[in-house]
């Protein structure tokens, strides 16, 4: 309770992210689930995406710029490719994934989309691939007398 926060000294001085930028980032998050068909109902995670973005900005203020930048880049991509095409392009273009990011598209892919993928998987997107728990997902406690929060060895293997 008495610790100092891990905040970048600039972060408190920045203006808050505007609703339209948040909405664009939310759309990106939802499209990850649509493209990989691994999150049919992303609604419950709205507040957690916002919380994640606030944390990124607090730790590294440049993320505020990344999110603004990404929103603008996505507007352009959607104009060019239509909605679904825009996200497919963002998620699969190989040049966009070459580090360090030197184009608008690369920044959007690496600093925003790729991070949202990490978040999405850890919030529950991983479940589509067969597991019950995942490193980064808060699976819950091992409550005595209840099923473990992960897939377990069959009982006849015990001891």
């Amino acid at each position: 309770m008495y610790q100092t926060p891990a905040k970048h000294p600039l972060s408190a001085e920045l203006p808050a992210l505007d609703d339209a930028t948040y909405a664009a980032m939310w759309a990106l998050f939802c499209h990850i689930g649509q493209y990989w068909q691994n999150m049919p109902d992303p609604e419950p995670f709205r507040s957690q995406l916002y919380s994640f973005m606030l944390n990124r900005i607090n730790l590294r203020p440049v993320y505020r710029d990344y999110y603004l930048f990404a929103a603008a880049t996505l507007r352009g991509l959607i104009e060019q490719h239509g909605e679904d095409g825009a996200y497919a392009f963002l998620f699969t273009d190989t040049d966009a994934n070459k580090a360090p990011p030197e184009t608008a598209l690369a920044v959007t892919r690496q600093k925003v989309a790729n991070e949202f993928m990490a978040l999405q998987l850890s919030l529950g997107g991983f479940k589509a691939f067969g597991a019950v728990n995942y490193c980064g997902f808060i699976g819950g406690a091992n409550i005595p007398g209840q099923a473990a929060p992960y897939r377990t060895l069959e009982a006849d293997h015990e001891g």
Partner: protein
Amino acid sequence: MTLEQQKSRLYPLLQTAMELELSTIPPYLTALLSIKREANRVAASLIRSVMMEEMLHMVLVGNLMSSLGGKICLNQDTLPSYPLRLEFEGHGFKGREFDINLEAFSPQAIQTFLQIELPTSLARQPQRLMARPKISVPGITLGEFYQRIIGALDALCAAYPESAVFNGDPGRQISEQYYWGGGGKPIIITSLAQAKAALEVIIKQGEGGDDSIFDGDEHYFDQAEEVAHYFRFNEIAQGRRYRPGDKPHEPPTGDAFAVDYQAVYPIKRNPRHGDYAAGSRLATLNQQFNRQYSLMLSQLEQAFNGHPAVLYDAIVNGMHGMTPIAQEMMTLPLDGSAGASHGAPSFEWIAPPYQPA
């Protein structure tokens, strides 16, 4: 009247209960953080332990609402704002009322906390002028208010099968893995017995058992007997711990401990955002705090209304994120004048940029 109609008469009571429990937390937290870190460790521990248990009470009320099929509302309209007038209804006479404030640890603050947790057996009839109440409590004390809810549940279950009364999906309730750090654990409610057990925890932790200073939760929680909240605050007021055998109407007879009301930041009482100069560090910090606080409340609402897992985000981000901001504010004077008050969070609403699910 159908079962649903009868249940829906209970929902406002549970919503009031939630607002009451929530309303105690900013004042307890503010008083706790106003204590300078090197002083008053016993008093600080006592306040913190009460505050942690109020959070448990919120969870128990949330689970009860969910078990009946109702919804909790935590937003701009139901947010407590300070000074908060609590009005307790008397039986055919003018009831109790007093203000709860966001203020520094002080004898007056402790007296207010004692009033909040006052056991029914110790309630008297103070006379005060009525002003427009913010939270109106049907009952002379919190304890009596919760007894009325128990009574209403008894009546419902006398008329209808329990499974129809408690027909909410238990998977939507907050389970024991979400709560630690306080005396007690969440109860998943699917029956009248469990509902009453949950409400008894709240009553007993607040005011103790019949003619007892102890909170009586040792039957379901394996720890040394703890005194109820009212009596913990009385320990601070008296500067002395209770001992087993001490009685509610008598002062504590255990070990004395030091209480230093000077080792406290001189924070402004009931601060509002407008108290902080535009562009000042305090204004920026207060904005940050309120943004986190509002997000946390919104996530609590989401958690209580069927998405318990969001509570982890609220826990990991909430307390750890907010208290350092509050602490910094309390070290900063409002202005350069001699004897200026220091800042403190105003606990006001800043709408998150989404419609909660």
